């Protein structure tokens, strides 16, 4: 285990979540015909947080919220060195004609989002899809995919690794930058 460099600490972290929630409220008003969809597994950590906070702020308890597993939709599942373990999909509604906010923790190559978009299409034809991420790694995108709402933009080298740590998993909310993936493990 090595120490990564903290790029967002606990206080800024909660401010960022707060800002993202308010941006969503500004954009979607009363969340009518709108649904939040978190991408399993790490995106769901963020979407859970945002969903709860939105209810706290707005008092709406009927915002539609689903969790989407994209393992079966990845185009690289047969080329990865480590096999992927699927998680559960919990989508008890269709996205047909709805405004969808897709939520993931880190946007990097864009391949996860691409897979999520094709997974989403199996639940109907959404009216629109917008993307919310906590971290946007600007460089090394493989696909023309951009976030509509972002917590922080990080310029990191390709071999570096950005990790979002959650208080309910690792004790403290923070975003860390590691020199490479190995040093994190």
């Amino acid at each position: 285990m090595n120490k990564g460099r903290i790029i967002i600490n606990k206080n800024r972290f909660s401010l960022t979540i707060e800002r993202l929630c308010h941006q969503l409220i500004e954009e979607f008003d009363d969340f009518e015909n709108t649904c939040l969809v978190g991408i399993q597994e790490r995106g769901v950590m963020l979407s859970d947080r945002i969903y709860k906070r939105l209810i706290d702020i707005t008092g709406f308890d009927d915002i539609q919220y689903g969790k989407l597993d994209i393992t079966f939709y990845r185009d690289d599942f047969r080329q990865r060195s480590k096999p992927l373990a699927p998680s559960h999909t919990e989508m008890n509604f269709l996205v047909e004609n709805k405004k969808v906010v897709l939520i993931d923790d880190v946007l990097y190559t864009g391949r996860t989002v691409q897979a999520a978009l094709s997974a989403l299409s199996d639940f109907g034809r959404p009216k629109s899809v917008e993307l919310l991420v906590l971290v946007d790694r600007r460089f090394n995108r493989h696909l023309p995919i951009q976030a509509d709402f972002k917590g922080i933009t990080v310029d990191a080298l390709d071999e570096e690794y950005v990790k979002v740590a959650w208080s309910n998993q690792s004790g403290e909310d923070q975003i860390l930058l590691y020199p490479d993936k190995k040093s994190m493990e």
Partner: protein
Amino acid sequence: MAGIQQLSTKHLLGIKYLKTEDIRLIFDTALNFKEVINRPIKKVPSLRDITIANLFFENSTRTRISFELAEKRLSADVVNFSASSSSVKKGETLLDTVNNILSMKVDMVVMRHPAPGAPHFLSQHIDVNIINAGDGTHEHPTQALLDAFSMEEKVGNLKGKHVAIFGDILHSRVALSNIFCLQKLGAKVIVCGPPTLIPKHIHKLGVGVEYDVKKALAWCDIANILRIQLERQDIKYFPSLREYSQYFGINKSLLQQLDKQILIMHPGPINRGVEISSDVADSDHSIILQQVENGVAIRMAILFLLAARKSEARQQGL
């Protein structure tokens, strides 16, 4: 995630060659596929670059449709082959037939064959993943997996649970695979049927034998009832079907005599009125149709997990 993330084997030839962790991994994955097949759009693109040949050298409805649906719901390309309409009739050997099909670039083979060990033989000669969909009287691994999966869905973890397998144990590949699978999951297994249809040395597998249906039913939590396989019986093993059904058929009055509810299973096809009466087959205790539903999810999980392994071999240049 706890447990393993990939299967320890390249082929699914039989439950005998699986580890308990493999079975758990298949169940965990099948749970996710069960969610997929209950969606309005029941299809995912995982295996879109894979071609699968279904080679059925023996008749089948359920297993074949189940495999084909599983393959299609994973977006694989599928070719079907049945012995009755093929060059096998003209005298081609198994290996020649399969090699010809493989030279058309097939990635996986699902095979049912009347000869026990046919998939093992193939696995020594060809490179692609092989899934045994039943080989003679030997094994039928996907059936055992879906049976155990369906049991766990109803009664929870099988550790310490009592399972009785009724019927034609001697000719049943389902029985053997079930025994291996249930024992690996910690269940206690007995078999029950006429002495002529119980293999002589079955106790060596750690399986109890009971010739009295009432006693077997009283002991078990789950009854898995198998079909009398007349097509494999070259001699008479019992006087008549009527007599068999009187002594070994499971009917409502037998179940009503029990002071508990047991789960009734049957891998199909059912011979109504022989090994199981209609009122039992259609009762609330019976999960025969759930078994069929779970069959697709289990087969999707197996295809998916074997495909994931294959790519790894390709990366290492194997």
